[in-house]
């Protein structure tokens, strides 16, 4: 017997779906989470269809009225922490018979917690920049770099992570974003090469590129396809392909421009 209005439940479900999808979750997980939330608030008959760029959900109340809502998803980026926290929150819910007031209270608590998760950053920005640098530097060491190359790659990784934040605000598409970031990596590496002797650029540039490789898109593409979401799987695979092409195009054109300038 539902006691919460369907609009509120729809809004909550769409918000959960939006946050998970924008942070890079699989579509299968979004569908499961939305179904579970609707079920907990007394709407067991829910159908949803999720693609990487949009959410469609329709719920049915006890009188047989159907409410449908859609949501367009833009500017996706990697945020595994949000996916984890929302999944944990939704998985802790249970279906139990509650009175009207308790359900309303639960809804309000839920919405507040969701807002907190959406706005919360567990690490301060400069720590995340430094960690981007550390990733780049340690990959450089992993592929056989020396300590000097580690330092250079660390610096480049930090700068690139820092500037990616501002590039994302300009709302470029994925292709251009990765192309510019890869070009920046090559430009910085080549510039530092003039001042610092005895470093090999290969390892440094590969270390930087490992920051941009589409690991998340590959994982999501395969897992979506295997769980039966062919549309989402294909979309993710194309996304991964275009990110890769963007990285190659950006770094290749910067290398070519540099060699044309004659250094």
């Amino acid at each position, binding site marked *: 017997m539902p006691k919460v209005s369907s609009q509120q439940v729809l809004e909550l479900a769409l918000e959960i779906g939006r946050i998970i999808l924008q942070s890079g*979750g*699989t579509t299968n*997980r979004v569908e499961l989470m939305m179904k579970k939330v609707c079920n907990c608030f007394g709407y067991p008959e829910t159908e949803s269809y999720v693609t990487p760029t949009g959410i469609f959900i329709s719920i049915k109340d006890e009188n047989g009225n159907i409410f449908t809502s859609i949501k367009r998803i833009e500017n996706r980026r*990697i*945020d*595994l*922490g*949000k*996916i*984890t926290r929302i*999944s*944990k929150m939704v*998985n802790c819910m249970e279906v139990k018979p509650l009175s009207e007031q308790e359900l309303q209270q639960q809804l309000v608590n839920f919405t507040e917690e969701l807002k907190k998760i959406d706005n919360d*950053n*567990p*690490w301060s920005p400069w*720590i*995340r920049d430094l*960690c*981007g*640098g*550390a*990733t780049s530097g*340690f*990959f450089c*060491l*992993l*592929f056989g770099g020396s300590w000097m190359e580690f330092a250079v790659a660390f610096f480049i990784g930090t700068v690139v*992570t820092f500037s990616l934040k501002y590039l994302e605000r300009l709302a470029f598409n994925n292709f251009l974003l990765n192309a510019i970031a890869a070009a920046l990596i090559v430009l910085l590496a080549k510039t530092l090469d003039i001042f610092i002797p005895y470093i090999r650029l*290969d390892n440094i*540039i*590969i270390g930087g*590129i*490992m920051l941009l*490789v*589409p*690991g*998340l898109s*590959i*994982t*999501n*593409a*395969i*897992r979506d*396809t*295997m*769980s039966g979401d062919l549309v989402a799987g294909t979309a993710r695979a194309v996304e991964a392909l275009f990110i*890769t092409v963007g*990285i*190659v195009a950006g*770094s*290749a054109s910067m*290398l*070519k421009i540099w060699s044309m300038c004659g250094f």
Partner: protein
Amino acid sequence: MQPFDTLTLMQFIWAFLAILGFSIRSNLKGIRIIFTALSGGLCWAFYLVTLYYSKSMLFSVFVAIILVCIYSEIVAPHLKTPVSVFVTCAIIPLVPGRGLFNSMQLYIAGDNLNASKTILQTLLIAGTISIAIALVSSVTNLINKLMNRF
């Protein structure tokens, strides 16, 4: 290179620290970042050890990804984390960024023969990673369904 000497340990530590940085950069927190980092390190260590015994690059990638995916499927539910978060962190060291860069460089230099060779190898590695993830995730689905039935 021996399979279990200090060099392998060093490489394991580099991969571990790299993925630790990646996890923090993508906003994970708590004890689980140690385990995601461990998955990345184990991925690279499995790859190196298998490469030593089998001398085949694609087979080593396949084995390493399968083992690390099984690790993710086992550990992730205990930490209340989605499995895809673990798998994403785990495969990063083996994603062929180096092959990509090398083939691009060879193309710029005009060496089309070697460039095609490298790009084919890059595509094969990416395909192998996909097949390994697909295999583990479908087998896990199957096991979960069987466990629910009985």
